[in-house]
């Protein structure tokens, strides 16, 4: 594993009507598969959107492979790919045209981009549909096109926000295989998911976030060991951590 930090977040804050991210500190190593878990409204997506440059933080710093993402966002963006749960594709373009467009945005040499695109299209099982416009594609196919778009410029850090939502078992398996192979080749992946079995099986380290703060972090085994209830599955660990944190917050607010 690359020992350079892929992502370093320090004192990150963002508030809308209420604080969404509240002094978050996070360090993710290069080449790591990191799962960021948390209940709805915990601040996972807000955090990742700030890392991807889609949202400006109120306070704190974000560093992507040593590049200050707030001071030099373009340099940071060159290293990052963002895949959201709603695939960001164009209905009127074909997968190949979409990949050509993305390669243009990330300034990938056309010959290299074409070779990578062909490889990705085959790898993700899109070959038959590569010259059809995306308008009629299923959710799974759209997500695979979006993932191909994220991979075609070979980013060092891939941020995935609920990438498996709405995918059938076969498509989910294909996406997971692609992601694991990318990590094996040194790419860093941060993924949010509500499917805890996926995080348990795929992630090297897991971070649990609640009310905009990191409340626990470690490998599954470490989290399991630290769990008060001796939980056997990640689901039990997660529920235990979140319930404890909610209880603590309520006690704190009562004391205040």
């Amino acid at each position, binding site marked *: 594993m690359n020992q350079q930090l892929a992502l370093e977040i320090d004192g990150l804050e963002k508030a809308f009507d209420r604080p969404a991210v509240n002094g978050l500190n996070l360090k993710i190593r290069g080449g790591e598969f990191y799962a960021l878990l948390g209940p709805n409204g915990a601040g996972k997506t807000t955090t990742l959107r700030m890392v991807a440059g889609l949202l400006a933080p109120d306070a704190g710093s974000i560093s992507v492979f040593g590049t200050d993402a707030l001071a030099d*966002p373009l340099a940071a963006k060159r290293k990052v790919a963002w895949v959201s749960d709603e695939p960001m594709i164009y209905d009127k373009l*074909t997968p190949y045209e979409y990949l050509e467009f993305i390669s*243009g945005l*990330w300034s990938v*040499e056309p010959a290299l981009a074409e070779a990578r695109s062909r490889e990705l299209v085959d790898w993700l099982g899109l070959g038959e549909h590569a010259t059809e416009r995306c308008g009629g594609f299923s959710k799974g196919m759209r997500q695979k096109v979006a993932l191909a*778009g994220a991979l075609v410029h070979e980013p060092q850090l891939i941020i995935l926000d609920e990438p498996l939502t709405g995918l059938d078992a076969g498509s989910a398996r294909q996406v997971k295989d692609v992601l694991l192979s990318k990590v094996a080749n040194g790419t860093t992946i941060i993924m949010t998911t509500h499917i805890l079995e996926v995080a348990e099986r795929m992630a090297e380290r897991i971070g649990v976030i609640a009310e905009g703060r990191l409340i626990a972090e470690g490998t599954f085994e470490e989290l399991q060991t630290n769990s008060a209830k001796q939980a056997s599955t990640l689901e039990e660990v997660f529920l235990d951590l979140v319930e404890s944190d909610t209880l603590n917050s309520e006690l704190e607010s009562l004391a205040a």
Partner: protein
Amino acid sequence: MTAAAANTLPWFAAHEGRLIWRDFVSLMTGGKTRRKAIMGTIVAVMIVGMHWFAAFLLRPAFEVGIAADKTTFMFISGGLIMFMSLMFSQAIEAVTRAYYARSDLDLIMSSPSPAHRLFQVRTSVLAVQTIALSVLIAAPVINVLVWKDGVHWLGAYAVLISLGALATAIAVIITLTLFRMVGTARTRLIAQIIAAIVGAGFVIALQGVAIVFGKGISRFSFFTSSDTISSAPETASFMWIPARASMGEPLAVLAILGFCFAFLALVIAVSSQRFAKDVLATAGLVERKTKTTVFSGFRMKTSLRATLRRKEWALLRRDPWLLSQSLQQILYLLPPALLLYVNYGSNHGIVYVVVPVIVMAVGQLAGGLAWITISGEDAHELIATAPVSDKTILRAKVEAVLVVVALILAPFAVVLSFISYEVVFWMLVGGALSASSAVLIQLWFRSQANRSVFRRRQTSSRAATLCEALVSILWAATAGAAMADVKYAPIPGTLVLMVLFIGWLIKPSRKEMVGT
């Protein structure tokens, strides 16, 4: 919820009514209570202003007196046909939307409620909305007529309401006929084109007739010409029933109300039974296999801006519905084009009319295209996460718009160049300024939206729409003034700059995005 029993017509009507009311309030106020008072004041000022303008327009008619003769009937009928074309245009667009917009249809279609009742209510609501728009536009004229000439003019309201019902019924028939003839996939596009052509086409056709017969550019020239009036039927003819009803003849009012509403009721009763089947057919559209494009390898390396521009042009080219919507403004260029053709070589003074119309249409066209490319970016987050600066992205999008506008403007420049290079110069300068200003306004007021809501873009930012319209009109006036005598140009020119300055002052802040 409502006191009516579930799944009955009143129950569906109450449900629809509540949704429409909340949608309307939200659109008017943007969810801010303070805006209610501001909007109320603006609406009140507009109502007073429109009544004053109507009184000003009708003053000559009151001075000579309004008689129930062929000239008056012709004039009223002409106005009613124009309103009918406007209502029909709106109705066909709304009826099509009722079939294709999914929103809550999936919920209702999957419930055990009888879908035909929902359609009955929705069609009735569409009729009410269609009527409301025309009544709103015509009300100042009718009110002034009632005030100055007598309460018999209240009949005009009855006629407008009846014609709104008729327009909705015809729109439903045409939509259903299109479903049968061309299938669900093409109905939407064809219906939208029909709506655009009927909406703008009738007015344009009348202008065209007026121009060809040398009677200027007024929409009413055709109806008021002595040739038209002498060949029109006598006053007792049934052709004049709508006109007589407008002037308050009781039997005519009853006849037109009875016929139009009976026709609408019949159409709703017959068509509602097919509603569920047709909605299911349109829902299946998204499952259809989409077009295949030949893949001939990636292009040679180009600049970032060229990549972005190419994408914009490809998306525009491949969305005929969107293109037809945004290019509607071109229809308004047809009368000036005809005017140029008819008067070519004989009347150079006509360019004082033609050039301002072109400048205004170009501004409106650029505004629409700029909204599509800037606000209607389908993969907004993809672009925002790419290592490309905001400046480069926006510059490329603006270039994409301006190239399309330039292509449309070019033929006019070529034709005008045979008349005068000076005219071409002012048209190009006016067109460029009008287009650039419209684009600038769209940049200031940009927001993230789906391209499919293009037709509702005006309601998302009324300030932007108003600025865009004013700027286009004022640049047109500036171009006209500059051609007449350049020393007059600074007057409307200064007003444009003032509107732009106000637009800049009230533009929304953009602090949420990371600055690039």
